[in-house]
C-alpha cells in the first residue's frame, strides 16, 4: 500500500513524517528535478509512505505542484494523508478540497491541536468530518499525540471512503457532470479533470472541445469571473460555509507573536537586532567553542605536550611491530593528519547547525526574509534568497537546491550563482585555523568580517549582474509569516544529527582518500624515491612539482611568495573545501612532522596573506558537489561554467588585492 503525505508548507509535514517512519527513511530526488523526495515505511507496518513537497494548491505553475500532481495519478496512491495546520484551517482545507476531487481516499490529520486552545480556536471534528465526508484525526506531530491512532486507522482501512463530495453550486456541478460524461472510459479521476478544464489548466486542454468551452464561457459570464478565479472563489465559499458550523474562534488581540514582532520587526531595531543575533551565532561557533575544542581534539589526533595522540601512538606501534617507516608515515602523517585536521571542527559544526536549526524552526528566519526582501529586491534578489544564504553557511548543496522556492527565474538564477559565496561549514575549518593562529583573541571578529564581506560581495555582484544581464524583469514575493514557536528538541536534534553525520562521512571517505593521495604525492619523487627529510627533501616530491606549475597564480595572494604547498592545497578546495586544511596538514607532517604553521613550509604566512588566502578560498569556485548541483539547478553546463569562472576570477582579484598590501609593505 502506498500513502502520499500532502500538506502546506509549515504544516508539520516533516515532523509527522519522522514520527510515522522513525529512522526508516530514504532520501532521494524526484526524477528529472532536484526536489527532494523522501520515502519511508510506517512504523509497525509494511505501508510505504512518500513525503511530497509542501504545497498550497495543485495548480500547474510550480514544479513542486506538478510533481505532487503527477505522483497522485501515475504512482497509484492508495491513500492520501493530508496534514493540516489546524490554526490556519481555512487556507489549509483549500488544498484538501482539491485532493478530494481526485477520488482517492483521504485521511486528514489535524495537526498542532496542542496549541489550538491558546489560539482561542475550537474545532468540532465530528461536524467537520461529516461535512467533508472524510475521516479526521486530531494529532500533535510535535508531541507525538494520537499518532498511534492515525497509524492504526490507515493500517486497518478504518476510514471513510471518498464520497465524491459536491462542493460547487448546482449549475457548476451540472457543468462538471457534463464534462465528465464527455470523456471516454479510460480517463481516471474524471471529476478532477473536469474541474481542471473549467480552470483552463494547460495540462488538461487535450480533453477540451468547443462545446465544453462555450458552456464554460456561459458560466464564467454568469458569475463574472474567469474559470480559474471562479473555482478558487467557490472552493473558499464552500470552506467558509462548513467552517461556520464547526469552528468557533474567539478573537485574539496582541498575541505573543504580535508583541515579539513589535520589537523584532521594529523600524529601527530590526536590522541591528539581526546583526547582533548573527554576530552571536558566529561568536559562539567560531570564538567560544572553537577556542576550547580545536586544540583539544587536535591533540587527541596528533599529540601535544601532555597527550600522546592517536597518530604518534600508531606510528610507534607500527614501528615496534617491525613495520616500515613508510607505512608508519602513511598512517600517522597521511591519514591521521588529514582526517584529523577536519574532525577538529566537528564541535563547531554541531553548534552552528544547532543555532541555525533553532533560528529556522522558531520562525525568526521567515522574519529575516520578510524585512530583507526590500534590500535584496534592489540587488536583483528576493527576500527568499536569504534561506539559501543561511542554509549555505551549513552546506552549499542543499542551499542551492533551496533556491527552488524563489518564484522568479532571474532572482533564482542569481541566488544560485551567489550562494556559494557564503562560507559553508567546510570553509569554516579554513577560517578558524587561520584566524585563530594569526589573530588570536580577535579571531571571531576576523571570522565575522569574512561573513560580512561575503554578504557585501553578494549584494554588489547581484546589483552589477542585474544591471548587466537581467534587465527589466518583474518578480514576486509571496510568503507566509508563521507564528513564533518554541523549537522542538527532537526536530533540532535530528536535523543536526543528520548534517553532522554527513560531514563525518565525508571526512571518512573523500578526505580519507585524498589524504592518502596527498601523502603519496608529497612522500615520493617522480623517481619513486621516498622523501625522508634528510637526503631527499619534500621540495623534490611529485606534489611540489605539480604545485610549482601553478604557484604563479597565487603569487600576489600570498604576498609575493611562490608556494607550491599553499597553491596545491588551495586547488584541492575543488574536491572539498576542508581538504585545503587536510592537505596543508599532511604536507606539514611529511615535511618536518610539525603542525601546519610551525612547519617551515608555511612559515611565510603573515596575518595579511592569511586573510588574502582565506578570501581566495572562500570566494573561489565551490567544491565539485556544489558545482554539479549548480549545473542541475541551472539546467545547463554553460551557465555553470560562467558561474564558476566568475567566482574564481572575483576571488583571485580580491585575494590578490589584499596580498598586494603585504607585498608593498615588505618592499
Amino acid at each position: 500500500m502506498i500513502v502520499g503525505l500532502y500538506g502546506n508548507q509549515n504544516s508539520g509535514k516533516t515532523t509527522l513524517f519522522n514520527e510515522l517512519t522513525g529512522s526508516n527513511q530514504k532520501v532521494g530526488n524526484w526524477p528529472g528535478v532536484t526536489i527532494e523526495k523522501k520515502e519511508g515505511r510506517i512504523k509497525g507496518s509494511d505501508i510505504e509512505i512518500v513525503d511530497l513537497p509542501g504545497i498550497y494548491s495543485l495548480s500547474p505553475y510550480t514544479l513542486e505542484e506538478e510533481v505532487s500532481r503527477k505522483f497522485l495519478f501515475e504512482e497509484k496512491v492508495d491513500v492520501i494523508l493530508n496534514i493540516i495546520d489546524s490554526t490556519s484551517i481555512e487556507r489549509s482545507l483549500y488544498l484538501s478540497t482539491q485532493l478530494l476531487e481526485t477520488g482517492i481516499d483521504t485521511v486528514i490529520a489535524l495537526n498542532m491541536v496542542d496549541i489550538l486552545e491558546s489560539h482561542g480556536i475550537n474545532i468540532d471534528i465530528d461536524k467537520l468530518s461529516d461535512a467533508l465526508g472524510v475521516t479526521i484525526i486530531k494529532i500533535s506531530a510535535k508531541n507525538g499525540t494520537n499518532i498511534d491512532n492515525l497509524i492504526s486507522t490507515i493500517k486497518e482501512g478504518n476510514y471513510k471512503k471518498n464520497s465524491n463530495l459536491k462542493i460547487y453550486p448546482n449549475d457548476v456541478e451540472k457543468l462538471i457532470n457534463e464534462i465528465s460524461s464527455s470523456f471516454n472510459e479510460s480517463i481516471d479521476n474524471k471529476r478532477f479533470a473536469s474541474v481542471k478544464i473549467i480552470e483552463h489548466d494547460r495540462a488538461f486542454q487535450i480533453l477540451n472541445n468547443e462545446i465544453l468551452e462555450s458552456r464554460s464561457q456561459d458560466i464564467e459570464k454568469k458569475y463574472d469571473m474567469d474559470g480559474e478565479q471562479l473555482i478558487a472563489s467557490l472552493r473558499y465559499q464552500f470552506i467558509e460555509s462548513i467552517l461556520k458550523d464547526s469552528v468557533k474562534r474567539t478573537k485574539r488581540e496582541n498575541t505573543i507573536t504580535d508583541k515579539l514582532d513589535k520589537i523584532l520587526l521594529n523600524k529601527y531595531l530590526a536590522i541591528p537586532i539581526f546583526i547582533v543575533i548573527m554576530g552571536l551565532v558566529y561568536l559562539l561557533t567560531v570564538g567560544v567553542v572553537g577556542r576550547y575544542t580545536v586544540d583539544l581534539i587536535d591533540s587527541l589526533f596528533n599529540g601535544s605536550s601532555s597527550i600522546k595522540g592517536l597518530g604518534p601512538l600508531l606510528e610507534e606501534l607500527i614501528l615496534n611491530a617491525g613495520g616500515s617507516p613508510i607505512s608508519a608515515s602513511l598512517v600517522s602523517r597521511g591519514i591521521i593528519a588529514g582526517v584529523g585536521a577536519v574532525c577538529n571542527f566537528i564541535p563547531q559544526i554541531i553548534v552552528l547547525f544547532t543555532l541555525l536549526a533553532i533560528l529556522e524552526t522558531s520562525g525568526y528566519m521567515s522574519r529575516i526574509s520578510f524585512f530583507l526582501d526590500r534590500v535584496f529586491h534592489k540587488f536583483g534578489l528576493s527576500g527568499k534568497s536569504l534561506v539559501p544564504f543561511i542554509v549555505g553557511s551549513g552546506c552549499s548543496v542543499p542551499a542551492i537546491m533551496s533556491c527552488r522556492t524563489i518564484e522568479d527565474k532571474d532572482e533564482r538564477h542569481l541566488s544560485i550563482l551567489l550562494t556559494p559565496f557564503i562560507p559553508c561549514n567546510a570553509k569554516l575549518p579554513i577560517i578558524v585555523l587561520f584566524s585563530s593562529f594569526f589573530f588570536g583573541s580577535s579571531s571571531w571578529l576576523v571570522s565575522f568580517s569574512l561573513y560580512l564581506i561575503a554578504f557585501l560581495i553578494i549584494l554588489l555582484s547581484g546589483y552589477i549582474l542585474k544591471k548587466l544581464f537581467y534587465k527589466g524583469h518583474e518578480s514576486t514575493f509571496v510568503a507566509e509569516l508563521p507564528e513564533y514557536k518554541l523549537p522542538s528538541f527532537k526536530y533540532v536534534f535530528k536535523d543536526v544529527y543528520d548534517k553532522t553525520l554527513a560531514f563525518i562521512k565525508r571526512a571518512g571517505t573523500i578526505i580519507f582518500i585524498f589524504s592518502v593521495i596527498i601523502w603519496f604525492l608529497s612522500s615520493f619523487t617522480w623517481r619513486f624515491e621516498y622523501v625522508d627529510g634528510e637526503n631527499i627533501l619534500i621540495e623534490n616530491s611529485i606534489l611540489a612539482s605539480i604545485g610549482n606549475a601553478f604557484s604563479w597564480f597565487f603569487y600576489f595572494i600570498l604576498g609575493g611568495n611562490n608556494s607550491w604547498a599553499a597553491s596545491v592545497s588551495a586547488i584541492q578546495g575543488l574536491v572539498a573545501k576542508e581538504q585545503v586544511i587536510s592537505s596543508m596538514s599532511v604536507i606539514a607532517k611529511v615535511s618536518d612532522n610539525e603542525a601546519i604553521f610551525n612547519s617551515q613550509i608555511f612559515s611565510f604566512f603573515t596575518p595579511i596573506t592569511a586573510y588574502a588566502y582565506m578570501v581566495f578560498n572562500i570566494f573561489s569556485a565551490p567544491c565539485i558537489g556544489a558545482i554539479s548541483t549548480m549545473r542541475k539547478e541551472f539546467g545547463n553546463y554553460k551557465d555553470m561554467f560562467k558561474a564558476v569562472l566568475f567566482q574564481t576570477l572575483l576571488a583571485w582579484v580580491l585575494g590578490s588585492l589584499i596580498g598586494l598590501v603585504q607585498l608593498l609593505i615588505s618592499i
Partner: protein
Amino acid sequence: MQKFKTLKVGEEGHLSDLKRGQRCVVLNFHNDNNALRRRLLDMGITKGVIIEIKKIAPLGDPIDISLRGYELCLRKEDMYGIDIRVVE
C-alpha cells in the same frame, strides 16, 4: 511607481494604498502575471474576502496582511493589482 494616497472608509483603491490596521474587502484583480494571480487566489485572496494590514517591514516593503485566519507577506507592487474597498 504609484502615488500614495490615504483612503477613507468606503473609498475604493488598490490594496497597496492601505495603512497599517486598515481593513478592506477585495473587489477584483487586474494583473497579467498568471502565475502570481493564481498564487494569490490559492492563498485565499478571492473576491469578497476581508483583508487587514497587519505589519509593515522595517524598510516599508513587503507588507504582512491577515486574511482567513492566517498571515501572508506580499510586495507592494504585487498588491497594487488587487482592487479593494476600505471597510474599517
